[in-house]
């Protein structure tokens, strides 16, 4: 133990696990009585620390905070830093140790943890489709459809993104308006092809009896024939390739076959990418996973203390409960944490040894 510019420093050596964590707790308890404005736990020479050690430190940090002091962790190993991030304890780590998230595509910093595991960043990067490139490719597809299919005056690609049909590529404004009219009425060959996964051909809107709300709008825009072919992602219909003509009967059976073939070729990798997670969706998922994992770590801590078991055994208890109940493991973790004291206002874990 020594004093430096940052406050009272407690150096930790060797390994800290559920067997030796109480020893660390006792050492920290002795520091609490020193009434120093700040306490530093230096892990530079700590060879190993599991969640029980971090739980112990977090509990003492909470007590120090109640006394107007602060506790920070200095020089944690990469594993301890990762564990702290997972457990939502990064605020305890000295600022220079915190590595910021480096994902340019994400601009919502309001819910961003200070540090995240490298693996999660890698996942995030790999799961985000490059919307600009994919959409540019789909615009080429729309142009190709207009030029290759006889009688076509315009074409578009509609895809379901976040559960909503959206035009991601269109050759002109009339086509955009045609698509929008179908989305607004919930009717039309585009909507039906995207929902049912089969092709729809409106030979002549002058005599068309389907889609009574949409067809009058289409006539107003000067469109008389529509050919919609379904697009698939991972085997499920997810959109449509729409081809529009100003003349009734513009599309022959060969045109239908060509449109279907084009749609089939686009389906697959390109559509998969276009309907994949956007940056925001991937980020939301990522935050959800981190939050769930933090809750799980807290539940394991509760069980470790309550049952006197190690972390793996605590995980096993939660897993067996999940199998027996048929409920996800995270549900059991949430109820385990809910059965104890709530999370402290300071944001640290609510698993502490009783005040002595």
């Amino acid at each position, binding site marked *: 133990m020594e004093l430096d510019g940052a406050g009272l420093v407690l150096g930790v050596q060797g390994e800290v696990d559920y067997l030796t964590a109480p020893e660390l707790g006792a050492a920290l308890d002795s520091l609490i009585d020193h009434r120093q404005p700040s306490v530093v736990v230096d892990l530079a020479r700590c060879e190993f620390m599991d969640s029980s050690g971090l739980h112990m430190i977090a509990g003492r940090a909470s007590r120090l905070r109640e006394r107007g002091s602060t506790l920070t962790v200095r020089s944690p190993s990469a594993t301890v830093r990762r564990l702290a991030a997972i457990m939502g304890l990064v605020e305890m780590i000295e600022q220079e140790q915190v590595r910021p998230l480096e994902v340019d595509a994400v601009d919502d910093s309001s819910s961003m943890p200070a540090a995240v*595991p490298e*693996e*999660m960043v*890698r*996942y995030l990067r*790999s*799961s985000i489709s490059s919307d600009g490139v994919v959409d540019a490719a789909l615009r080429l597809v729309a142009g190709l459809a207009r030029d290759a299919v006889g009688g076509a005056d315009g074409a578009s690609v509609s895809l379901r993104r976040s559960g909503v049909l959206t035009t991601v590529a269109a050759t002109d404004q009339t086509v955009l308006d045609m698509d929008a009219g179908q989305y607004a009425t919930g009717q039309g060959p585009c909507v039906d092809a995207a929902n049912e996964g089969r092709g729809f051909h409106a030979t002549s809107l002058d005599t068309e009896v389907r889609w009574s709300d949409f067809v009058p709008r289409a006539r107003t825009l000067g469109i008389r024939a529509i050919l919609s072919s379904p697009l698939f992602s991972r085997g499920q219909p997810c959109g449509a390739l729409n081809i529009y003509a100003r003349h009734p009967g513009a599309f022959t059976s060969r045109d239908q076959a060509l449109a279907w073939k084009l749609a089939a070729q686009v389906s697959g990798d390109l559509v998969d990418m276009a309907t994949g997670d956007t940056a925001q969706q991937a980020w939301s*998922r990522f935050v959800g*996973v981190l939050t*769930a*994992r933090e809750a*799980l*770590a807290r539940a*394991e801590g509760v069980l470790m203390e309550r049952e006197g078991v190690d972390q*793996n055994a605590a*995980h*096993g208890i939660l*897993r*067996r409960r*999940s*199998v*027996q109940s*048929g409920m*996800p*493991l*995270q549900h059991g973790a949430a109820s385990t944490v809910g059965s104890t004291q709530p999370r402290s206002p300071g944001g640290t874990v609510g698993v502490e040894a009783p005040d002595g």
Partner: protein
Amino acid sequence: MAELAGDVLDRFRRSAGLSHSELWLRYFELGGMSSTVELQAILYGALLPTAHDHDVIAHALNERFVELGGNHPVPYDSDEHETA
């Protein structure tokens, strides 16, 4: 030591319709500590998982099977008294 070879786990992964990255995300959410590369090595049989790691992977797969209407078809390694 794990009873199931990694390729068996990988067959379950394919049956569950999960990509490697999707399985890793579910595994990570359940407390798994291995990296994406390590998980793939386990699934390819190049790395032997610990019993605990095996069970976290098995549970991630089983939760997916429950979502699909199944009932925990992937056996666990460390729990002899598991009831599925």
